[in-house]
Structure formats: structure tokens, C-alpha cells
């Protein structure tokens, strides 16, 4: 028993959870922006995958992982823009378009991998992002161990959580985005450009999810592997809802998912004489229990999923 507690509360478990939460949280915050502006974003999975792929392609051709990261941001934004175009301009059903986008992204990345590298499973190895040690912080015990030794995208993630919160709740732009998602007509009558807010938010959503993907392929690893997002986009969607459409909440929810996953991994290591399948269920069961336990009563933006037509 004590062994289990030791496993759960070790610093290593927490740092692992932070790493594993990073791609999910990035995408979840992307989801926050998108949904705060009124656009349901099921396409996060595809955006992560595309970002992961673009990052490796970028690094492969330029040799620089930083340019790879840039490529991921660009590709994510582009996919976000495409998604925005379909949902806003062409009034596509958000959920349906998102599902289409995910299939498209999976097809395109797998197909391009065969075009670029001639193989289907995984790309060749490229230069990945180095781990960066934060000065000063690394001297602090515990906190330093938790936070100071990570891939740059982990730091970017933490900064993103904070900045996104600031942006959404403290700035003009944030107020306008929130108003758009709650009541686009009200925003419109105040002279706020509803479409711009939505295009901006969904594109940003793509950029963030793309960065999350870059963390998978260049941060944690240094190559692309087919369908490597492995459902993280859906977890991000859940984290966004779970986190009440708030960047901090989204991070907290992502962390919860990842933490229980990290615990699961460590429990496998100590011989509990439990089937590995049962241990692997823990994160998913926990999510269902917490959600059903009505700890949160989520209230989505009022106009989420609707199409607004300016001057209809």
C-alpha cells in the first residue's frame, strides 16, 4: 500500500504528468478559444496530427527543430483557417466538419509520409527540440525538479495557459471573443466584427493544437509516426469541456488525465497482481467518475455550434 502512495506522490510522477499533459493542454486551450468564439472544435485531433507532421517535415528539410516548430504552428494555423472557412463561411455543421477534418488529416499525413519518405509507419529521425534547463528555478528544490527541466514547448505551454487566460479575461480582444460566442448578434450590434473574432479564434486554436503536435514529434520524440496523436485531440476536447472553457481549467483537466495515466504506468511497474488492462482503464474510469460526480456543471458558451449570419 505504502508503495502505491509513494508512486502516486513522487515528484517523478508529477513531472511525467506535466510532460504528458503538454500536448493535450495546448490543444485544449486551442479548443477553449475556438469554442469561446462559438465554434465547436472536434478537429483538434487532426490539428495535433498535422502539427506533429509539419514539425518533422520542417526539421527534416531545414535541419532546425525550431523551424520545425514554426512549420507546425503554420500548418496548424492553416488547418484552423480551413476549418474556420468551412464552418463560418460555408456554414458547415461544426461537428461534422470536425470529423471530416480529422479523417482528412490522418489521410494526408499518412499519405504525404509515403510521398516524402516512401514509408508508412514512421519517418526517419530528425533533429528534435533540446531540453532546456531554466536558470534560478533549477536551484529550488522540488519546484525546480518539477518545472525546470523540460522541453521548450512545456514552458511555452505554461506561458500559454497564463497568457490565454489574460487574453480571454483581461483584454478587449478577449471580451469581444467571449461576447461573440455568447451572443453574436449582441456583438454585431456593438460594431464588433463577429467573423473576424471567429476566424481569429479558430486559427489560433489550430496554431496551439499544432504546437501540441510539435511537442509529440519534436519534443518528446524526434520523428513522426503515423496517427501518433493517438486520440489526444479527443482528450483535449474533453479537457476543454471539463475545464469549463477556461484555459486554466483546461490545463487542470489535462493534467488530471495525464496524472492518472502516469500513475497507471507506475502501478504497472510494481507487481500488484492486477491485469494490465484493468490498470490501463484507470484514467478513463476516473474521468467518467469525476464528470458524472457532478463536480463540474459545465455551461458552454450560449451560441456554441450556431451559425451567425451578419445582416441575414
Amino acid at each position: 500500500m505504502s508503495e502505491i502512495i509513494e508512486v502516486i506522490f513522487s515528484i517523478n510522477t508529477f513531472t511525467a504528468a506535466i510532460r504528458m499533459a503538454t500536448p493535450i493542454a495546448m490543444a485544449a486551450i486551442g479548443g477553449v478559444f475556438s469554442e469561446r468564439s462559438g465554434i465547436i472544435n472536434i478537429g483538434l485531433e487532426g490539428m495535433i496530427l498535422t502539427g506533429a507532421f509539419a514539425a518533422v517535415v520542417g526539421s527534416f528539410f531545414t535541419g532546425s527543430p525550431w523551424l520545425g516548430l514554426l512549420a507546425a504552428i503554420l500548418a496548424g494555423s492553416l488547418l484552423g483557417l480551413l476549418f474556420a472557412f468551412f464552418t463560418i463561411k460555408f456554414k458547415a455543421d461544426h461537428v461534422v466538419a470536425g470529423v471530416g477534418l480529422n479523417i482528412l488529416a490522418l489521410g494526408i499525413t499518412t499519405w504525404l509520409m509515403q510521398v516524402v519518405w516512401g514509408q508508412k509507419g514512421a519517418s526517419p529521425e530528425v533533429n528534435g527540440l533540446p531540453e532546456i534547463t531554466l536558470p534560478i528555478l533549477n536551484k529550488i528544490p522540488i519546484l525546480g525538479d518539477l518545472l525546470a527541466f523540460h522541453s521548450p514547448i512545456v514552458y511555452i505551454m505554461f506561458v500559454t495557459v497564463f497568457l490565454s487566460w489574460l487574453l480571454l479575461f483581461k483584454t478587449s480582444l478577449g471580451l469581444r471573443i467571449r461576447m461573440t460566442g455568447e451572443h453574436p448578434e449582441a456583438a454585431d450590434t456593438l460594431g464588433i466584427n463577429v467573423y473576424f473574432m471567429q476566424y481569429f479564434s479558430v486559427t489560433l486554436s489550430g496554431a496551439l493544437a499544432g504546437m501540441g503536435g510539435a511537442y509529440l514529434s519534436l519534443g518528446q520524440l524526434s520523428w513522426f509516426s503515423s496517427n501518433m496523436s493517438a486520440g489526444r485531440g479527443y482528450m483535449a476536447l474533453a479537457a476543454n469541456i471539463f475545464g469549463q472553457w477556461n484555459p486554466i481549467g483546461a490545463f487542470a483537466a489535462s493534467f488530471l488525465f495525464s496524472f492518472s495515466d502516469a500513475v497507471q504506468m507506475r502501478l504497472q511497474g510494481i507487481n500488484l497482481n492486477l491485469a494490465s488492462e484493468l490498470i490501463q482503464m484507470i484514467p478513463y474510469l476516473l474521468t467518467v467518475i469525476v464528470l458524472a460526480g457532478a463536480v463540474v456543471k459545465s455551461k458552454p458558451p450560449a451560441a456554441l455550434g450556431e451559425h451567425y449570419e451578419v445582416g441575414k
Partner: protein
Amino acid sequence: MKKNTIIILGILLLTIFTMNSLAAAEGRVAIVFATGGLGDKSFNDAAFAGIMAAKEKMDIEYDAAEPSSITEYETYLTQYSALRRYDLIISIGFDQADALNNVAQRFPDQKYAIIDTVVDQPNVASYVYEEKERGFLMGVAAAMLTTKADDPLTNAENKIGVIGGMKIPLIDANIAGFIAGAKYIDPEITVQHTYVGAWADPAKGKELAISMIEDDIDVIWGAAGRSGLGILKAAEERNIYGIGADSDQGHVAPGHILTNGMKFVNNTVELAIKQVLNDKFTAGVNVLGIEEGGLGYTESLLPENVVEKLEEVKNKITTGKIEIPATIDAARK
């Protein structure tokens, strides 16, 4: 009426197609890969290397299919068989057994080979491996390194680990061998084993490996398909020893791949093709162990004394002086 027209048209076009592509080479083979596809840097890639070697040495042509689900196996096998132009059709992976079993009955004149499992048909040559033997060798190597005092990549703790892709019998045979091999060197060694739960989630594989490394494990074997790549990545980053699987994965984490638990699928594929082309195809089961050259290790970073020990163990296995338990529970005892 309409449907008939389509079918006739199709048959017509097919005839034209087959006439176009008459083989000029000495032999022609088709290969149906396992669902992971090429680029796994292990099983499928090894099989592909075998094809390439055969092509170089024997002047063959080949066609290859990369199914994305197990329900597609039978389709690809049937399509290839129906063309009736291949000297041999090769199935890669244990999960093709049912599909091949059906197809082989329908095309009794076609010769097939399958790797990693047994299909009991008169026109199928099956190649299986004594997985636990490979595991044993890896266990011996890992144990000798973790107990080695002066190695910069190992620590004082005598802990090693192995990570499987999923909990399936083939993987468990390897793990059982690994545990037994380690205990053979030092019964006090701690051996952890876990599973990723997926063959194609390298990021998760890496995290799982890190969780072991943080528990002071300093030699880790990844037998987990593409997820295994993440495991080796972790070994490199955390500066411990990783052990590859199936192919020589030294390039994945240079300077950190202690050895590789080799499954010479390439040799097997090449052998199967050679047998067919030399009219020596024999249906039935070929069990490939260390003795038959189906399994082995790479010397990679292994110190000389370890290599010597491994050779000694190999000898003992082939002569039956070492009995390897078949299950994890048995090995843990």
C-alpha cells in the same frame, strides 16, 4: 444487365492489364505486411530487408501490400492469389493466420509462407521463432550490465526492465525469457515488466520507459513495435542502456543501444524465397531458434566478456543445458 456489363468490362480490362505486366525476372513474390506498415524500424522493415536482399541476389520482382486492418489481409491475399503469377506469397505476422488459412485452401496451387505463426495447409510453409530464447539472451546481457560496477551508463541498483507493446503471448514469451535470463546471472536482480497498451504510440512508450528509469532501472528492453522507438528514445535521453528488438536499432539512439534482440525475419524471408526458387519449398512448420539462426543478438556496445557469456549461453541453450520457462509466472519463481 448493367451489373453484367460492368463485370465483363472489368474482366476485359484486367486481361489487358495482366498482359501488360508479364514478368521478365526470374521469380516473382508478393508480400503482405503486418498492419503496422513499413517504417516500424523493426518487424516489417526487417521483412522488407529480406525482400531487398533476395531481389539483389536472386533477381526477383515483388509486389507489396500494407493493410490497415486485419480484415484486409484476406482481401490482399486473395487478390494476389487470383493473379496466379507469384511464385510465393508471404504473410508477415501472426494475425494473418486465419486469412491465410482460408485463402490457401481456395488456391491449392499457390505457394505461401507465413512468419510468426503456424498455418496447417499443404501449400503453406510456416516459420515460427522460439521467442523465449531471444528473451533469455537479452536478459543475460541486461543483467550483466546492470551488475557491472564501472559502467558510466549504469547505476548501483540492480534493476532492469522490459516493456511490451501489448500483453500478448508472443510478447510474454520474450518477457519470460528475459526474466529467466536475468535470474540466471543473478537471482537477486529486480526485473520490471510493463506494457504500453498500443503498438503505435511512441510518445507513451517513452513516458513508460521514463517511469522505469526514474525507478533506477538502467537497462531497458523495448519489444513494442513503433511504441518501442519511444522507449529507446528515453534510454538515450536519460543516458542508460536500451535494447532494440527485431532489427538493429542502433541508429535510433546512438551510443545507447546495448544490443538488439534480433529476429532475423530478413533471413527468414530470404530463405523462404530461396527455397521456392530452388524448388525446395516444403510445407510445414519451421521452428527457428538460436540454433537455426532465426534469433540472435548484435554485438553493438556489448563488452567482450558479455559477448563471451552470451556465446556460452547460446551453446547451452542449443545443447539443451538451459531450460527456459515459457510463462512469466514460471520465470518469476
